[in-house]
């Protein structure tokens, strides 16, 4: 379309849109608006990165763009969602709206879109004699109250019990000038989250994955989120204080104000919390290119990594342990006798009024009571009423009578490691092996996330999530390529046994596998299993872990006698860390299928992993299924 036609088209649209402005008596205003619009077109303002960031435009095919925002109030032009230029013209026009023509209870566009106003003013240098600057009372009070001097990226570690939080979560904290130091908890936090409209977990997952939920930004006192994540869900928080200038922070805040009025379709893997948090940082400092690297999925820990990779962006990192970690830190410092006493207090075998307790040293009593109170707080977080004291008054009173001299600050034991220390979530694997018949090569890729044989810094060390792990094998003698395995989703939570807080281990697995307990020319089978078990680690940081599981299994394949078999298995095994690099796993199971095809057999596995670095390891595996054996040497690369 010739540009003159386009201009005419836009002018027509504007006339139709804003008759008040267009036919205003004040023709000088119109002249100035036309002048600004023309100038903006001339310098191609609507093609600039900042404009695209402000309006959340994303490239589509053939140079087209579409905005991620789905609430139409976010745009001034009817085609603003897909047309940056007409949106820019319409935005300029909206700034000229006389305040007496505002609809009742509506803010002036200058106050609704303050970040756009700020940027356009910087670019076009508005003449305040010809464009009336509006007073934005609510916005001004909001900005003045928040008065940011910093912003903090907060990472909440993994919460396996809720699929929506399996990969962690990020939010930002707005650090106000007068809420620094000791008062950091009183800052406001900004969070982007889906607003679920269903209780049904099936619909919940489905809508979360397909973008059917509305995602919105919200702001709240940061301490409420600390209570929610740290204490209710027992997730450690990692806080990364970032370096931005006050002007950059002001832009971020003004943009946040604009976002508060709209919503986005929430996509669990792509347009999620972390994605939108990154876009806040890009608005503040458009030179940052944080989102560009993500295309398949935006995993919260990866966004922390990319922020940490930027020069001079992170000022400081702070670990905020959950109530559970605080309790375990204290238990970690206990002697065996103290730990036993704690267990007896919890089981009410020792009363706090008893002589036995009174005979202990004050220091012991303090340690025991502080730990016990953490335990009670943790246990009671799940209960109904939040505004009640959850710790029995007698316990509190006993503790209040004990005074200890200010102890030296001890080194804090970290019960989770910083997310940026973790290996990349994507994994590429190349291997070679031999089965009873012939040698083969192996190629595998998975986009997410962490398996128990990988190095566990930055991850929950007792759990595993494998998503979409596809493995092909090329058999050298029969010259065939076969799908060896496709692990669609596999989750394991070992939850090592703790006599204070018992949580059973559980695991589930859904995959397409090779039927390995017979020779069927590498035929495939669809498998599902779910199991519960128990695992044991002798001490918090012991290198040894023992586990056993009882699983239910179903398998479908046209190579099975009745096309299916249903049964179960019992598995026992162990993991052992020789050091940071070397880990070994031994496991054996007995599988019995009693419906469909009947079959009973043993399997056994020996896996050794040696990690060269965070992102590179080699593994040696030996697997036996019934009478079939295979050995594999593989290299894994994480990115």
């Amino acid at each position: 379309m010739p540009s003159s036609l386009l201009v005419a088209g836009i002018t027509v649209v504007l006339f139709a849109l804003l008759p008040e402005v267009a036919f205003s008596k004040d023709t000088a205003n119109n002249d100035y608006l036309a002048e600004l619009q023309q100038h903006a077109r001339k310098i191609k303002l609507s093609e600039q990165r900042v404009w695209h960031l402000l309006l959340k435009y994303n490239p589509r095919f053939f140079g087209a763009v579409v905005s991620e925002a789905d609430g139409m109030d976010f745009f001034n032009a009817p085609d603003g969602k897909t047309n940056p230029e007409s949106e820019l013209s319409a935005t300029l026009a909206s700034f000229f709206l006389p305040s007496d023509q505002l609809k009742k209870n509506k803010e002036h566009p200058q106050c609704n879109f303050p970040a756009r106003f700020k940027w356009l003013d910087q670019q076009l240098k508005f003449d305040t004699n010809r464009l009336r600057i509006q007073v934005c009372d609510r916005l001004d009070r909001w900005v003045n109250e928040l008065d940011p001097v910093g912003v903090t990226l907060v990472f909440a570690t993994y919460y396996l019990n809720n699929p929506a939080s399996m990969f962690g979560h990020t939010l930002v904290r707005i650090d106000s000038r007068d809420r620094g130091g000791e008062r950091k908890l009183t800052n406001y936090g900004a969070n982007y989250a889906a607003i679920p409209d269903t209780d049904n977990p099936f619909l919940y997952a489905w809508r979360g994955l397909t973008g059917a939920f509305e995602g919105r930004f919200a702001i709240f006192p940061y301490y409420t989120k600390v209570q929610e994540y740290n204490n209710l869900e027992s997730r450690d928080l990692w806080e990364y204080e970032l370096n931005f200038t006050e002007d950059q922070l002001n832009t971020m805040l003004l943009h946040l104000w604009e976002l508060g009025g709209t919503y986005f379709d929430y996509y669990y893997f792509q347009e999620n919390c972390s994605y939108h948090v990154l876009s806040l940082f890009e608005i503040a400092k458009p030179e940052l290119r944080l989102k560009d690297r993500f295309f398949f999925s935006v995993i919260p820990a990866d966004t922390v990594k990319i922020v940490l990779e930027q020069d001079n962006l992170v000022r400081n990192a702070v670990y905020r342990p959950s109530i559970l970690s605080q309790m375990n830190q204290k238990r970690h410092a206990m002697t065996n006798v103290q730990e036993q006493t704690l267990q007896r207090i919890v089981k009410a075998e020792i009363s706090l009024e008893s002589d036995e307790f009174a005979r202990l040293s004050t220091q012991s009593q303090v340690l025991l009571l502080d730990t016990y109170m953490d335990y009670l707080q943790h246990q009671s977080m799940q209960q109904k009423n939040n505004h009640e004291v959850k710790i029995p008054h007698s316990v509190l009173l006993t503790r209040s009578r004990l005074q200890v001299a200010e102890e030296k600050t001890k080194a804090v034991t970290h019960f989770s490691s910083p997310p940026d220390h973790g290996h990349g979530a994507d994994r590429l694997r190349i291997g070679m092996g031999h089965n009873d018949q012939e040698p083969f090569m192996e190629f595998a890729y998975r986009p997410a996330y962490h398996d128990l044989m990988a190095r566990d810094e930055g991850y929950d060390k007792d759990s595993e999530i494998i998503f979409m792990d596809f493995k092909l094998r090329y058999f050298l003698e029969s010259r065939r390529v076969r799908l060896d395995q496709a692990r669609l989703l596999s989750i394991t939570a070992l939850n090592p046994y703790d006599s204070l807080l018992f949580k059973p281990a559980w695991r589930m697995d859904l995959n397409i596998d090779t039927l390995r307990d017979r020779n069927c020319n590498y035929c495939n089978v669809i498998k599902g299993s779910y199991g519960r078990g128990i695992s044991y680690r002798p001490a918090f940081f012991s290198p040894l872990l023992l586990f056993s599981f009882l699983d239910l299994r179903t398998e479908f394949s046209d190579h099975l006698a009745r096309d299916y078999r249903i049964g179960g298995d019992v598995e026992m095994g162990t993991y052992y860390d020789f050091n940071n690099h070397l880990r070994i796993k031994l496991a054996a199971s007995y599988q019995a299928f009693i419906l469909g095809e009947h079959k009973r057999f043993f399997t056994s596995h020996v896996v050794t992993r040696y990690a060269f670095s965070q992102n590179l390891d080699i593994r040696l595996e030996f697997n036996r299924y019934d009478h079939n054996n295979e050995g594999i040497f593989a290299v894994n690369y994480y990115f």
Partner: protein
Amino acid sequence: MIRNSLVVFAVFLFLLPLSAGAAGYGTAGCGLGSMVIGSDRGAKQIFAATTNGTSGSQTFGMTSGTSNCGDHGLLNLSKEREVFASENYTSLVKEMAQGKGENLNILASMYQCPIANYQEFGAMTQDKFNDLVAGAQTTPIELLSRLENQLNQHRALSKSCNIQLSVLKR
């Protein structure tokens, strides 16, 4: 293929032992009455950006009719102590029994106590614990009013701290 596997993924999420976590967890400040109720399966409660119809670009967590909130979507400063004490009640009471802690220091700062007096503030709450928290029934608001009484009676803290709401700036 991707679509199919997402279906399968969703089906399996259905089978997960979803946690019963968030039931009854309260909210604070400007979310009061406006939050999306978390299900008993652990769905998170959020401070919804509810529209209250007073402006075009709605800001955050604004609900008409909650006295804790200003019309700009942030807490009213006069309610700051109350909301803080309610939301962190268990942590706060625990720290009072211990005579120190992060939440306790924040409370001291909300009474304008200088940093040098935080320790004394903590020691006082431990010393007077039984007066401050008389029993399991004490509410956060009662706790604050008793605390203000104790502050007034305290030799040093009555001078260095200030319980008046009017001193909170802005």
